[in-house]
C-alpha cells in the first residue's frame, strides 16, 4: 500500500493568500513613483530656491548660489511697496478678511441649507442643489464682465463687502454639497430622539446634528477657504488697492514697471501659501471622520 502512494515533491511556486513577493514589477513601480514624486515637487523646490536667490542670480539655472532671506524681508517691507505700488502686507490682511468673511457667510447660510437639503426632499430640491453646483461649472470669465458693470453701478467695486459677496459664490456650493452628504449619512433617529426628549427642531439640530458633523464642517470650511484664497480672476477685475487680494499682489512683482523680480515673486508666493497651510495644520484633528461611530448600531 505504501508503495502505491506517490509523494509529489514539487516545490510550491504560487503565492499563498496574503503573501507578497519582491518582484521586478513592484520595484519598478516604486522607482516610478519616486520619479513622479520628484517631478511633482520640483516646481515647489524651484520656487523655494528662486526665493532665496539675490537679484543678480535670479535668472541663473544652476543650483549653486548664495542663499539669502532678504527677499522675504523686501516683500514685506516698504521697499517692496514702493517697487510694486501695492502694500503686500495689507493685501495679505485683505485676503484673510475677504476669504474668512466668505467662508463665514457660507457656513452661516450653507450649514442650515445643507441640513435642509440632506434631510428633506421637496419639490424641486434636487434642481435647486444642481443649480447651486452649476455656479461652479461656469467659467468665472463668463460672468466677470456683467459683474464688473453691476459692481461699478451699485458701488461695490473695490470694496471688501463686494469681494466677500463674490467669493461666497465660490465657497457656498462647496460647503453645501460637502455638508449635505454628511447630514444625509447622519441617522435621523438621533434628532427624532431629541424631539421626544422635549427639544424643538432647532435645538435638536444645534444639540445633536451639528456637533456630530463638526469634522465635516472643518473639512468644508478648509476647502472653501483654500478655493477662495486661490481665486484670482474676481479680485483682479472687481478690486483694486482697497480690496485687492494677495493673489493679485503677487503678480505685481513680475513688473509692469519694466523690471521683473522673479525672486521676489517667488518669495511672495511662498508667504501667501502659508495661511492655508497653517489653517490646515490647525484643524487637521477635526478632519478625522467617524465621530458618530457607536451611536447607532451598524
Amino acid at each position: 500500500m505504501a508503495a502505491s502512494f506517490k509523494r509529489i515533491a514539487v516545490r510550491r511556486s504560487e503565492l499563498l493568500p496574503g503573501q507578497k513577493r519582491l518582484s521586478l514589477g513592484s520595484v519598478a513601480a516604486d522607482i516610478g513613483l519616486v520619479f513622479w514624486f520628484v517631478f511633482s515637487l520640483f516646481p515647489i523646490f524651484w520656487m523655494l530656491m528662486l526665493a532665496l536667490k539675490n537679484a543678480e542670480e535670479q535668472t541663473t539655472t544652476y543650483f549653486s548660489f548664495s542663499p539669502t532671506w532678504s527677499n522675504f524681508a523686501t516683500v514685506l517691507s516698504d521697499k517692496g511697496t514702493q517697487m510694486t505700488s501695492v502694500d503686500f502686507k495689507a493685501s495679505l490682511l485683505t485676503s484673510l478678511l475677504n476669504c474668512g468673511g466668505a467662508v463665514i457667510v457660507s457656513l452661516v447660510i450653507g450649514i442650515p441649507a445643507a441640513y435642509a437639503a440632506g434631510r428633506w426632499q421637496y419639490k424641486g430640491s434636487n434642481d435647486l442643489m444642481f443649480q447651486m453646483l452649476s455656479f461652479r461649472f461656469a467659467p468665472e470669465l463668463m460672468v466677470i464682465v456683467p459683474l464688473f458693470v453691476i459692481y461699478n453701478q451699485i458701488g461695490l467695486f473695490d470694496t471688501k463687502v463686494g469681494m466677500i459677496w463674490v467669493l461666497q459664490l465660490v465657497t457656498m456650493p462647496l460647503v453645501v454639497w460637502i455638508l449635505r452628504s454628511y447630514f444625509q449619512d447622519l441617522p435621523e433617529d438621533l434628532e427624532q430622539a431629541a424631539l421626544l426628549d422635549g427639544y424643538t427642531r432647532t435645538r435638536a439640530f444645534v444639540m445633536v446634528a451639528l456637533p456630530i458633523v463638526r469634522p465635516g464642517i472643518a473639512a468644508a470650511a478648509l476647502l472653501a477657504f483654500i478655493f477662495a484664497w486661490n481665486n484670482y480672476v474676481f479680485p483682479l477685475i472687481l478690486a483694486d488697492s482697497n480690496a485687492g487680494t494677495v493673489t493679485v499682489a503677487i503678480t505685481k512683482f513680475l513688473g509692469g514697471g519694466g523690471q521683473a523680480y522673479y525672486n521676489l515673486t517667488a518669495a511672495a508666493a511662498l508667504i501667501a501659501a502659508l495661511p492655508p497651510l497653517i489653517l490646515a495644520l490647525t484643524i487637521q484633528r477635526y478632519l478625522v471622520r467617524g465621530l458618530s461611530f457607536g451611536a447607532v448600531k451598524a
Partner: protein
Amino acid sequence: MANISVKDLKKTFGKTVAVNGVSVDIADGEFFVILGPSGAGKTTTLKSIAGLVDIDAGTVSIGGTDMTMVEPYHRNVAMAFESYALYPQKTVSDNLASPLKSGRTGKYTQAQQTERIDQVTKTLGINHLLKRFPRELSNGQRQRVALGRVLVRPADVYLLDEPLSHLDAKLRAQMRAELKQLGAMSNTTTIYVTHDYQEALALGDRIGVMRAGTLVQIGTPDEIWRTPADTFVAKALGQPEINVLDGVVDDGRIKLADGSLDVAVPADAKVARGDRVRVGLRPSDIHVTSGEGSLRGRVLLAERLGRNIELTVDVGGAQMIVLTSGRHGVGEGDDVTMKIADSDVHVFAAGSEPGDDTERLTQQSDKSLEAAQ
C-alpha cells in the same frame, strides 16, 4: 398616564404602504405589544404615535386629546429606538440627563436630575458606566442606556421599539423578567414592538399581531394563543411553528382520506359536512401515545433538543413536527400513534395555495375580533 386611541392610521413611503388602516384603543396603564415580522409596519406605527412621521390619514389621540398634528415634543411621549439613537458626543450620564434638561418634561434641579439618573441606572445595572461614551459600550449596555433615557422621565406613554432585540438570549430572558417588574413600566401606558412571540406573550396585557400594515388580531396573550384569528397569527406564535394539515369534514369529524388524521370538529367551528378545511395542531399539544389516537404517521427524523425530542412525522404525505419527552422511545422509521385534545384543534378555511393565510372557522373568534375593534 393616558390612554391612546389610534383610528384608521395610514402611511405610505413612495409606493410602499407601511401602515394600512390601523385602529386600536389602548387603556391607561396598559402594556400593549405589537408583534409582527420585519416590514410589517410596527416601527412606522410607533413613530406615528410619537409624531415622528407625517401620517397620510387617520388620527392619533393621547389622553383624549387629538395629537395628530401636534409636534413630538408636545406629546409627552418617551421612546426607545431600535437603533438606540444615543447621542455619540455625550456621555451616558449626559444622554440620560437630556430629557430632564429640555424643560418640557418638568423642571428638575441638578440634585433631582442626579437622583433620577442614579435611580434608573441602578435599576438597569448601568450605574458604573455613567462617564463612558456610547461608542465605549457593548450593544447590550447601549440598549440599557436607551431604555434608561425613556424611564428617567415621567411620560404619558412609553414607546419601546424592539428594546431587547440585540441582547444575547440569556440577557434577553433576564431583561424580560426585569422589565415586567419595573414599577414605572406597570404604571405607564406602554406600546412595545417586537418580533419575538415569547416576549409578546410574557409581557403583553394585550397583543396586536401585525401583518402587511394591518393589525390582524388584537387580544390577550391567552386569546391570541388559544384562538388565533387566522393561520398567520397561529404561525406567528410558537416555536416550532404550528402544523397545518388539510382535511375534510365528515360526520362531525375532520379526516384525511387515508385515515391517518381523525379529530373531532371543535364545538364552535362553523363547518358543514364535505367542507375542505385546514387543521392547525401545535407541536406541544400533540402527545405520542401507546393506546388509541387521532393521528397516525411514520417518524422521519428524531432530534434531541435538550429536554424534548422533536419528531418530524409523515402524516398522510404531509410532514408535521411533534414535541415529545422521549418517554415512549420512538425512533426514526417507527410508526407512531398520537393524540390531541379536542380543544387544542384549530380549524381554518382551506386555502387555494399551500402558503397563503386563511381565517379561523370559529364563531368565537369573530366575536373577539369585533370586541377588539
